[in-house]
C-alpha cells in the first residue's frame, strides 16, 4: 500500500563535514518520484560525499539542515534502516567480503528486506529462479555467485553485481556513485540497459558522475553541476553536453 509522494527526496540547507572539514555547504535538492537526476562535478568537488551522507556513512557529520526521504527524517536513521526504507547506494568501489559466497550474501540481504516487510524468508528454489533470471539480464554467469562477494571480481563484474543487488532489493531511490568508472564500453552498455529497465516512472535515481558518457545511456530529467560544496547550476540534459564540451570552469 503505497501512498502518493510529492517528493521522494528533499534535501534542505544541508551542511556536512568529514573529519572536521566542511565538504557540503547549504545544499538544496528535490527529487520527485520517477525522476532521474544527475549530479556532475569535477574530481574532489565533494559530489560523492552527498551519496555517502545520504546512505549514512559513519564520520559523515550532518552539521545543519535536514533530509526527508519518503516523508521520513532520513538523517535520524541508521544506515540499515535507510536501506530497508528503500534507499540504495551503488558504490564506486564495491567492498570485498572474503569467505562469504555471493549467493548466500544476496539471499541474506534479500531476506533482511523481506523480513522488514513482514514476509517469510525466501524459499531456496524460488531464490535460485529469481537469481537466474536477474543474472541473465546482466550477462552475469551463475558461476559468479559461488565466488566470494566482490573478491577477485573485475571492475565490470563488481559494478554488475551492484546493479544486480539494486534489482533484487527493489529500492525506491537509487543513488549511483560513479558507476561508470572502470567500465569498458560493453559493460557500460549492458549495465545501463539493466538500470534503464528499473526506470518504471515511480523509482527515482540520483546519478553521480564526472563524465557525460553514462548519461548518454541513462538519460536524466535534470542535471546539476556541483562545485564548492553546493549546486551551482541546474538544467536539463543539454547542460550535461555543454559541460562535456566546455569543462567545469566556474563562470
Amino acid at each position, binding site marked *: 500500500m503505497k501512498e502518493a509522494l510529492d517528493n521522494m527526496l528533499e534535501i534542505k540547507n544541508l551542511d556536512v563535514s568529514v573529519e572536521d572539514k566542511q565538504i557540503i555547504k547549504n545544499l538544496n535538492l528535490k527529487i520527485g518520484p520517477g525522476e532521474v537526476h544527475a549530479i556532475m562535478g569535477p574530481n574532489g568537488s565533494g559530489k560523492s560525499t552527498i551519496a555517502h551522507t545520504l546512505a549514512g556513512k559513519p564520520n559523515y557529520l550532518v552539521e545543519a539542515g535536514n533530509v526527508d526521504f519518503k516523508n521520513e527524517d532520513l538523517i535520524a536513521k541508521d544506515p540499515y534502516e535507510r*536501506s530497508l526504507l528503500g534507499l540504495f547506494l551503488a558504490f564506486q568501489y564495491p567492498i570485498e567480503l572474503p569467505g562469504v559466497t555471493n549467493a548466500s550474501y544476496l539471499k541474506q540481504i534479500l531476506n533482511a528486506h523481506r523480513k522488514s516487510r513482514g514476509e517469510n524468508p525466501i524459499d531456496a528454489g524460488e531464490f535460485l529462479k529469481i537469481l537466474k533470471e536477474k543474472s541473465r539480464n546482466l550477462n552475469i554467469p551463475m558461476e559468479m555467485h559461488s565466488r566470494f562477494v566482490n573478491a577477485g571480481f573485475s571492475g565490470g563484474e563488481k559494478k554488475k553485481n551492484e546493479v544486480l543487488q539494486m534489482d533484487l532489493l527493489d529500492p525506491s531511490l537509487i543513488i549511483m556513485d560513479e558507476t561508470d568508472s572502470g567500465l569498458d564500453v560493453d559493460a557500460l552498455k549492458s549495465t545501463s540497459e539493466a538500470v534503464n529497465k528499473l526506470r518504471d516512472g515511480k523509482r527515482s535515481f540520483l546519478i553521480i558522475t564526472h563524465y557525460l558518457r553514462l548519461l548518454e545511456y541513462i538519460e536524466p530529467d535534470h542535471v546539476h553541476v556541483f562545485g564548492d560544496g553546493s549546486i551551482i547550476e541546474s538544467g536539463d540534459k543539454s547542460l550535461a553536453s555543454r559541460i562535456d564540451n566546455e569543462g567545469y570552469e566556474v563562470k
Partner: protein
Amino acid sequence: MNKINKDNFKQDAYKYGFVTEIEDEKIPKGLNEEVIKLISSKKNEPKWMLEWRLAAYERLKSMEVPKWARANIADIDFQDLYYYSSPKDFKEKPKSLEEVDPKLLETYEKLGIPLKEQEALAGVAVDAVFDSVSVATTFKEKLNEIGVIFSPISEAIQKHPDLVKKYIGSVIPVTDHFYATLNSAVFSDGSFVYIPKNVKCPMELSTYFRINASETGQFERTLIIADEGSYVSYLEGCTAPMRDENQLHAANVELVALDNAEIKYSTVQNWYPGDEEGKGGIYNFVTKRGLCKGKNSKISWTQIETGSAITWKYPSCILRGDNSTGEFYSVAITNNHQQADTGTKMIHLGKNTKSRIVSKGISAGKSSNTYRGLVNFHRKAENSKNFTQCDSLLVGSSCKANTIPLTENNSNTSSLEHEATTSKISDDQLFYCMQRGLDAEEAQSLIVNGFCKEVLQQLPMEFAVEAQKLVSISLEGSVG
C-alpha cells in the same frame, strides 16, 4: 547448595548458564591417595587401573604446574577442589533411558541434545557426561551390531580391559606434563570408541560434557581407536553454568589410527566464558593428541573454541606411519576478558607424511588470543610436507592477537609453507553490508563467518549451522 547470584549476570548471550537442581554426591575435597581410591572404587575399577592411577599420582607429587601460557591464570588450590561429583544415588548407570532421572533428560533437552533416540538427530549417537559420570549413551546396541564399541570409558575399563590397557597412556604418557598426569590420576568419565577393521562407522559419534556441580573439576578421559581400514567421525560439545568461581576442566583425549584408518575429531567448545568483567568461567586446560600409528592413516582435528575464561590446548598429531596425514582446523574466538593460547603440534616421523594447519583467531573486547604451533620434521621423515595458515581478526582496538609458530626441520627433503595475516573488520565492510539492509550485528556476523568459513565447513553438516550461530552469539555486544 550452590552460591549463585543470578542477578549479577547481565549477559544473556550465554544461554546454557542454568543449573540443574539435582542432589549431588561428592567425595571429600582434596587430592590424595584416598580420593583416588574412592574414585576408582566408585567406578568399580579393576586393580590394574587403580595402580595406574596411583603411579600417576606418585609422579604428580614431583611435578610443577606449567606457567608458560600467554594467559593470566589465578593460582589453583588443588586441595580445595572436588574431584568427583555425581547425581545422588547414581550407583549404576541406568540400563535404559526410561530409568534416567527426568531432570537429567530435561537438562540435555534444554541444551538442545534430546537423548530419546526417536527424537534424536538422525545419524548421531550421543554419550552424555554429567559432572563425573556418563548418564546416558544412545544407539549403543545398534552400533554394537557392527562391532563398534561406543561407551563411557568407565564401562570400557570393565568390559574391554585389554583394549583400554593396550592404548590408554600410549599417546599421552602418564608422565607427560602436570595436567595430563593429574588427569591420569583422577579422571572420571569420558568416552571410549573402538571401530573394528574395515568398518566405516555409519553415524556421527558425539559426547556432550556438562559441568553442573560447583567447586568441582571435570577430568574427562577419552580414548578412540580406529582399527585398520576403518573410519569414524566424532564430535564433542561442552557447556557449564554461570558462576563467579573459575572451574577446572582438565581433559586427556587420545586417538589412535592404525593402517589406512581415519579419525575425524570435532570440538564445539562453549564452556561458560565468565562475565563481562572477567569474573568466573571455565579453565579449559586440555591435552589432546592423536597418533597416526599405521601407514596411510589420517587424523583430523577441527575445533570451534568460543567459551571458557582460559583455553589452553594444542590438539596434536604424531605422524608415525609412512604416508600418514594430520590436519588441524581451528576457530578460536575470545571476547570480553577471555584468554586463549591454542594451536597444534605436528610431529612428522614417517616418510611422505603431510600436515595441514588452518587457524583462525578472532579477538574482541579486552581479550587475548594466541596461536602457538610446532611443526617438527624428524630426520627420517623424508619428503614430508606441512602447510600452515594463521589468520587473526581483530574486532575493536582493546584486544590482542599473537602468533607463535615454531618449526624444527631435520629432514632436508621436507618442506614447510607458512602464511599469516592479521586484519581488522573494516568499517567499509560493515557499512557496505548495512547499506544493503543488515544491522550492525548481522553485518559483523556475516563477515566473521566468512573469515571462519574454511574451518566451519570441516564440521559435520549436522553441526555446521549451530556452529555458525555460536560464532555470531560469541561476539554479541562487541560491535561499536
